[in-house]
């Protein structure tokens, strides 16, 4: 809890410093809904959580980062017996190629606690996004990222990993924004436990984050 508060303070301080450089910044808290599946259809979880996000824009460059802490419980009808908590950190750095499209790079890091109840993942994001202002202060966003060089706490590798995203940012009043973001992850993890041969251990998850943000 203390770390979360310190992170929020750091975000606010960073936002104010950036403002002085002519950078537009938004920062705010988020509530999250999530689902998580791993290895087989029976091993599925649903969870909720909270976190925060910050975004900044300077001319054609933009940056976005978010952290969310999720508490997963076994889903009804599943084979999982206990839940776990996960902390996910996402970050992107984008450059606008056009008024409605940009390329982006970033990373994702999700850690599970207890460590072996779910896979912890780290990967580099490479992708693109399209965004459009559909009204005064309202922007919709769609992104597609390839998750390159993924690392897993349980070992293994993944030849194909993608992350799709949908986002909405609406200026509600003055500097207050409403934000909503959806992410879908599909990671084709393969592992070779005990050298007995490579088996599929895919990971699939969705996260929805809804929150408020203050613009500077």
């Amino acid at each position, binding site marked *: 809890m203390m770390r979360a508060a310190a992170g929020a303070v750091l975000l606010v301080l960073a936002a104010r410093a950036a403002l002085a450089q002519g950078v537009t910044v938004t920062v705010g808290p988020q509530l999250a*809904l*999530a*689902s998580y*599946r*791993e290895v*087989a*259809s029976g091993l*599925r979880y*649903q969870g909720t959580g909270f976190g925060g996000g910050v975004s900044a824009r300077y001319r054609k460059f933009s940056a976005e980062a978010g952290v969310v802490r999720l508490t997963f419980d076994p*889903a009804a009808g599943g084979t999982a017996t206990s839940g776990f908590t996960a902390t996910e950190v996402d970050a992107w750095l984008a450059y606008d190629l056009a008024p409605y499209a940009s390329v982006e790079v970033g990373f994702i890091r999700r850690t599970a606690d207890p460590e072996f109840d779910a896979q912890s993942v780290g990967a580099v994001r490479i992708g693109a996004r*399209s965004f*459009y*202002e*559909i*009204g*005064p*202060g*309202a922007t*919709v*966003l*769609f992104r*597609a990222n390839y998750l390159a060089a993924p690392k897993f706490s349980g070992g293994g590798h993944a030849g194909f990993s*993608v992350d*799709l*995203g*949908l*986002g*909405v940012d*609406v200026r509600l009043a003055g500097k207050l924004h*409403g934000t*909503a*973001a*959806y992410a*879908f992850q*599909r990671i*084709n993890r393969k592992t070779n436990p005990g050298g007995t041969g490579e088996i*599929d251990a*895919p990971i*699939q*998850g*969705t*996260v*929805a984050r*809804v929150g408020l943000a203050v613009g500077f």
Partner: protein
Amino acid sequence: MTLQLRAIALLVGCAAPVAAGAQTVQNATLRRAQQAYDNLEYRQVVSLAQAALRERLTGAERARAYELLGFTYGALDSILKAVDAFKQVVLIDPERQLDPNRVSPKAYSAFDVALRQVLLVRQLRIDSTSFVGGRGAVPIRFTVTQPARVVTRAIGTSGGSYVIDSGAWNGQVNLSWPARLANGDPVPAGNYTVVVDARLGQNAFSASQPIRVSHGSVDTLPSLTSLPGYQYLPETEVPPQSWRPLGLAFLYTGGALVGTLGLESSSLGSSSKRELAVVGGAALVTGFVMTLRKPAARPAAANILYNRLLRDQIARRNQDIAKENVARRQQVQLTLVPLSKPGGAGPR
């Protein structure tokens, strides 16, 4: 009846100009001559006027005496004597004019002949004027009664003398004086006397008119903030309301849905759509609300270009005005006003 009326009109016409000037007559003999003229006693007018001329008279009285003689000789059909008398009148008072509607044709023609037999410079007129040095001229008008060599000069009270014109003139003369020195500079400010000297053989006549020349600064032009007939256009425009926001929200949400369905792992089964429903619903609601709202103003490229051209045009004009003002600050506004004449015309 008609003859009587004409005679009366003629007599009234002869008498009118003489009677008009009788008020200033101080000499008794001349007054008696005037009364004799009023009583149509022409013989007595001649003797009394000649007697008055032998007495001490002012210039005006002397001119009046000759004028009485001129009208009287005209009435007596002694045209040559009338002409001689009128010559004396115009020599004394060169500006003297007779009204052809009020004097008899005989007297008027005799006066006209007299004018053409005497070298005079009459009706010297200089109008008030103001102009930028080098861009205007002072109009000078006068009448020379005989063909003569006429030299027109401006003589300053401080000693400077500038020849305005020199040439052979007869009749009405119109001159333009740019009031500039030989090097192009305007003549110095001060009082001047414009002197017109006419010479014909041994005869010479001179007329003059004092004037005052003053210098002033030339008004500068104000800078432009707009061009007449051209106005800045709004650089943003509000597009018409449309379903585009909702359509885009559908497109983006649909893309996410299709991507999710297409990429779901068959071995893991269909994933939860709760998260997509929350965010996609938010996107669709936002699109619907934005469809109902007034669209945001967007830059109007054509208007921005037009305004830029207009600003450039105004800036160029202002640069020209600035250059013009620099030139104007080095120029002099000449103002010329004729002064009252002290009485400076006469034969030499």
